[in-house]
């Protein structure tokens, strides 16, 4: 007891600012507050047309927020319809791509000699621009179905799949192989077969890496879906609507779709974060 008191006397008195800075709950709060303040300032600057004078633009190309919001309210049914189409593509592409990428990573982890080259090829796939891939798969999927809406969706999903598979494959491979040295030795001492090492050690170790991959591929899947809509045979989706409206110089409407695209991205990211905090609880 006495010892503690002494310490307090000796140690320099902390300023209020420092104490606030070191307060745990303030730290948590501040990660929230600063972006919020920044957002509010941006909204203010936008609505008061300060941004317009900074970037030498007009309210025509950069419409005011209330105008964009008004249009979003007016056409919410159309927005929803296009959003569903985009989200479907992004979701299925993400799901199939991530599963595929993970399976490839497991395969490579088990047979490193055969698979390692494959991993680099997949990495190369990911660096092919979407604008190049989308028309290619459009032509490829012509025979999938007589329903243009369906086959065009398939082609979009394939593009998203490839992008996500690469991301997941590369990350999951690291998770499956970069293991604490002693744990691998321990498994060897137990004379554990490869299968058990995989199941008990490698797979659990890869879970955080899976989320690292998802943090990149969730936004990427939405972006890829939006870009491949530009080239799709069947006219639907948020991305396609952005393009159609800009060509007709309907910037307010285009912005309504851009805002929708942002919302989709943000919501998807929040869902991912919630999932991550549930799944990774035992890692903390």
């Amino acid at each position: 007891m006495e010892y503690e008191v002494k310490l307090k006397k000796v140690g320099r008195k902390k300023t209020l600012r420092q104490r606030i800075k070191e307060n745990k709950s303030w730290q948590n709060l501040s990660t929230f507050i600063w972006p919020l303040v920044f957002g509010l300032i941006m909204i203010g600057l936008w609505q008061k047309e300060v941004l317009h004078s900074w970037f030498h633009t007009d309210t025509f190309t950069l419409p005011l927020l209330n105008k964009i919001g008004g249009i979003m309210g007016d056409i919410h049914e159309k927005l929803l319809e296009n959003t569903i189409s985009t989200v479907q593509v992004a979701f299925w592409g993400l799901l199939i791509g991530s599963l595929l990428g993970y399976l490839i990573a497991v395969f490579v982890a088990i047979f490193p000699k055969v698979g390692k080259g494959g991993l680099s090829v997949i990495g190369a796939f990911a660096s092919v621009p979407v604008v190049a891939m989308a028309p290619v798969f459009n032509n490829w999927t012509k025979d999938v179905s007589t329903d243009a809406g369906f086959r065009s969706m398939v082609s979009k999903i394939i593009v998203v799949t490839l992008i996500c598979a690469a991301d997941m494959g590369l990350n999951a491979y690291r998770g499956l192989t970069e293991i604490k040295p002693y744990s691998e030795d321990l498994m060897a001492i137990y004379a554990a077969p490869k299968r058990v090492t995989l199941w008990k050690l490698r797979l659990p170790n890869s879970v955080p890496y899976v989320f690292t991959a998802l943090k990149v591929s969730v936004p990427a899947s939405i972006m890829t879906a939006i870009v491949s809509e530009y080239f799709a045979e069947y006219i639907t989706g948020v991305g396609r609507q952005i393009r159609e409206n800009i060509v007709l110089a309907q910037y307010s409407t285009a912005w309504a779709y851009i805002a929708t695209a942002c919302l989709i991205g943000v919501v998807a990211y929040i869902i991912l974060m919630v999932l991550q905090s549930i799944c990774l609880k035992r890692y903390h």
Partner: protein
Amino acid sequence: MKERTRRLVTTTAIASVAIGLLSGCGGKQETGNSESAGGTSTSELSAADIIKKAAESGQVGNWGLGNEYEVLALLSKYELPTSYLSQDFTMDGFDDNSILLASAMTYNELGLVKNSYDGGYGYGDSVAYIDMNDEGVAMLEDNIFCTKSFAKENPETVAAFLYASLKGWEYAVEHPEEAAEICYEYGSSVSPEHQAYMAEEVAKLVSTDMSGATVTEIGFMDDSAMEQTLNIAKQYVTLDDATANKAFQSLTLDDIRDASYYEAAKASDGKFDIEKKSVSIQLKWLPDAQFMGYYVALDKGYYKEVGFEKVDIVSGGGDIAETTAVNNGTVDFGVTWETNLASADASGMDLVEIAQIFQRSGLVLVYKPENF
């Protein structure tokens, strides 16, 4: 060493498989062509039957992005559902029969389908087409426009630019072959053979009106044709922005065109007191014979003759919105379609058409008779 070789072999094997797969998608199916040549093209179907059949199977194609309204008007004319497939900027969809009735510009895609030079599909005269002008749903295409404020502040510049440009167009229409060569020199996006074909066809669009009559005055803004275009546009363009849509529906010709500059150019003796010596024009598409008049005027020095020091012809293409470029002052003049101009004005832009270069619609729907 052994391991390295093995890894190298697997990598190259996988890479070559991947490359093989990718290269496969570029190949055209030659068999499709030869088969279709021997097909039964004897059955004589009317345009109505063909449109109905293609629309019922949902295989009418268009590029969208503001090019679709004539097709929509045509489909409604025959009381068919107004949906269409999105065509890319090749005619592969037409070639592989996924699109039975494909949109084509007489001066571009139609040539690619028919001709067998590099990039062509070589169908020759085995294909037939439905002309929008014959169907009464034609809309006006390439014009010249600028902003109302620019025109007001620089009336002499606008008149001089029109004077020289129209002179260029007149020359190009009379000498399409030479015009094609000039375009090719100025950085063409297509081959010389296709350029020559384009110039030939563009000349027809500039010098014939929607009813097929010869146009005596190039660049003249014909009210009835413009009215027809605007009416079709009002029927089939729905702008999601409610205020813009209302403004669009109440547009009249006087809001979007001003003939005074054209008249000034026509009445002039070629002497102008121009306010802005250096101007630029934004094309709607990549540089080619679709815009041969401007290249001819530049090459022959017509712009210099009227007093311009410098005229920049700015290439368009893809997603360049020419209306935006002109409205925000990046360029002074632009080439666009009446519908694009009207919808841009409805949503708050300040644009005005000053001359109409193409006097009839260049859009046709091309089909293989044996498919019907």
